């Protein structure tokens, strides 16, 4: 099917520009409920036109953070700046933000049209303007035929679109999306993710999305903040989060990864480059070449982490088995269609996962249960995690 994809997207990275002023700034935000601290001394900058994700398990404070921006909660300490203005104490109905609720929160006694027009009516726009904007929104979410229906007569996916249209109708400076796609099935969710990105791009709005679905965050975001227990663990682009997680928590939360305890044998100078590290993973010699200097020094306990798809699996012995090579038995195989994941166990009981793309339909001698295999990986594939 021929489909216009619109202009090619350009690189967008205002956070690397020191001259850029943040659009939204959370400044040392703390939120307490009685003895429970939901958000703890958190600071974060979000830039105009950014698609920003707050990612974390339930109870990590991401929804609280979003609700403070919407005005439903006030921070216990700290302040929130929107375009440089402190918005503390401004009630939700005077904030230039709009929210798409997890439950959609559509007004059940109003038609789709009326739901979308609700926010515009509050601004006392003229009837003609409201009508025009509602039509535009209905078209944007492809619900023109459903204008006169009530939310109860719509499917889950259609309701989600109405909620999106309603929250976009006022052209908010920031659109807040609280687990927007949680209730949709996988296929529809993926489609909608791309539509969301399209809409964000077309309208040029700033989107802040709260999600616990790491795939969703990876797909849609310009940047992701990974949260845990009320603090931000890492803020980075999806690629950085995946390839260069700053801690075991982030590495483990995003995607699949092998993590092994290790002792630093030597780091930095002496290994050639400043980012080169030699590790001893309890008997397994590992060499890592990183683009940045390793903060650890010889003797430190660290973790060696490597993504399964970066581990090569082979029945043949590699030329050099002294470093970055392990020999074990195939203990289990997970066939995922596009990939197969092999769980290889070593003599000491440790298990490393290796993923192999199924590039060919026919293989002479497929690796199977009980095979003794060699796992190898290049020096630039693994990571040293000090936290």
């Amino acid at each position, binding site marked *: 099917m021929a489909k216009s994809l619109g202009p090619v997207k350009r690189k967008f990275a205002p956070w690397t520009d020191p001259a850029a002023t943040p659009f939204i700034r959370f400044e040392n935000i703390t939120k307490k409920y009685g003895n429970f601290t939901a958000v703890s001394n958190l600071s974060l900058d979000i830039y105009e036109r950014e698609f920003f994700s707050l990612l974390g398990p339930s109870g990590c404070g991401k929804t609280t953070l979003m609700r403070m921006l*919407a*005005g*439903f909660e006030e921070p216990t300490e700290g302040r929130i700046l929107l375009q440089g203005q402190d918005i503390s104490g401004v*009630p*939700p*109905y*005077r904030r230039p*933000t*709009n*929210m798409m*609720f997890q*439950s959609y*929160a*559509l*007004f*059940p*006694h109003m038609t789709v049209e009326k739901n979308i027009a*609700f*926010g515009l009516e*509050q*601004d006392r726009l003229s009837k003609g303007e409201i009508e025009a904007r509602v039509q535009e929104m209905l078209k944007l979410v492809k619900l023109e035929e459903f204008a006169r229906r009530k939310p109860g007569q719509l499917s889950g996916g259609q309701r989600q679109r109405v909620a999106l249209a*309603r*929250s976009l109708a*006022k052209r908010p400076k920031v659109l807040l999306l609280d687990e927007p796609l949680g209730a949709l099935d996988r296929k529809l969710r993926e489609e909608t993710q791309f539509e969301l990105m399209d809409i964000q791009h077309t309208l040029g709005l700033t989107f802040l999305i709260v999600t616990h679905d790491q795939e969703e965050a990876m797909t849609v975001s310009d940047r992701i903040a990974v949260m845990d227990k009320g603090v931000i663990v890492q803020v980075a682009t999806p690629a950085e989060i995946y390839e260069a997680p700053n801690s075991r928590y982030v590495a483990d939360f995003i995607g699949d990864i092998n993590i092994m305890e290790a002792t630093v044998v030597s780091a930095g100078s002496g290994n050639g480059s400043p980012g080169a590290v030699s590790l001893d993973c309890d008997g397994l010699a590992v060499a890592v070449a990183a683009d940045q200097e390793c903060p650890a020094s010889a003797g430190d306990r660290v973790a060696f982490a490597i993504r399964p798809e970066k581990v090569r699996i082979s029945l043949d012995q590699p030329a050099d088995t002294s470093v970055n090579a392990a020999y074990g038995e195939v203990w289990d195989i997970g066939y995922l269609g596009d990939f197969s994941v092999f769980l290889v166990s070593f003599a000491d009981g440790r298990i490393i996962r290796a993923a192999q793309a199924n590039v060919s339909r026919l293989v002479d001698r497929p690796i199977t249960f009980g095979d003794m295999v060699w796992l190898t990986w290049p020096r630039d594939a693994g990571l040293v995690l000090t936290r």
Partner: protein
Amino acid sequence: MAETATNPNAGPARWLVVAVPYIWLLLFFAAPFLIILKISLSDTAIAMPPYTPVLEGLGALGDFVSQLDFENYTFLMEDPLYIDSYLSSLRMAFISTLLLLLIGYPMALAMARAPTGWRPTLVMMVILPFWTSFLIRVYAWIGILKPEGLLTVLLQAIGLLGPGEQVQIFRTDTAVFIGIVYSYLPFMVLPLYSALEKMDATLLEAANDLGCPPLKAFWRITFPLSLPGVIAGSMICFIPITGEFVIPDLLGGAETLMIGKTLWTEFFGNRDWPLASAVAVLLLLVLVIPIVIFQNQQQKVR
């Protein structure tokens, strides 16, 4: 889904279940009503029973039809007392229902917005008065409202009334309104509470978020969504209040005109059973309109 022959709910057992409420209605509503209708069409007699039976066995059917007469109904239309009683009852019921809504809605709203853990206790407190007989509670109001009653004592104690003054509420319409509002409040609060309680609180957040201040959001969101509860509560109160007898009889005065009282006087004071029956039949007809509204609303909710 369409019912099929294999449906285990089909068959005689199902009909039995359906029949029970109908038999109940036939025995305890239709049959007594037909008797009343029959009496209302007969003539007064000084005898036991104090009316001339119009139907003595099925053989006398022709006789019966020829004896039927509508003079009782004609009389109801001619004597302004009855029309006034009906109108006064409807007026009292209307005002009472309005008062009940004004007092009951904030109560129900407060209950629905209370922390989840408190709600069962609050519902319990609303229905607590039912643990005492209705009649005793109305008698208690006599003790409170009578000139030398508790209210007078209280107001004298806090200095709002001089030592010689007394509250002149007892045996007035005001006392009747107090009694009715007090007695019917749970019937208003409970349907309102059940409508408000199941409302999703995020709807109000959404309204706020879209620029609608809280008070406006109440009228645009909360109130329209609670309308089924408002109608249910109003009808459940309005219909029985129109025919109320005990409260106006115990708390009302000579000028309190309500159809329930008139009906009682015709039956037991004047012993004019045919006329009293006609009053009762007309009362039912007067109430058919609100009952139909109520039914329609209930159907719509489903």
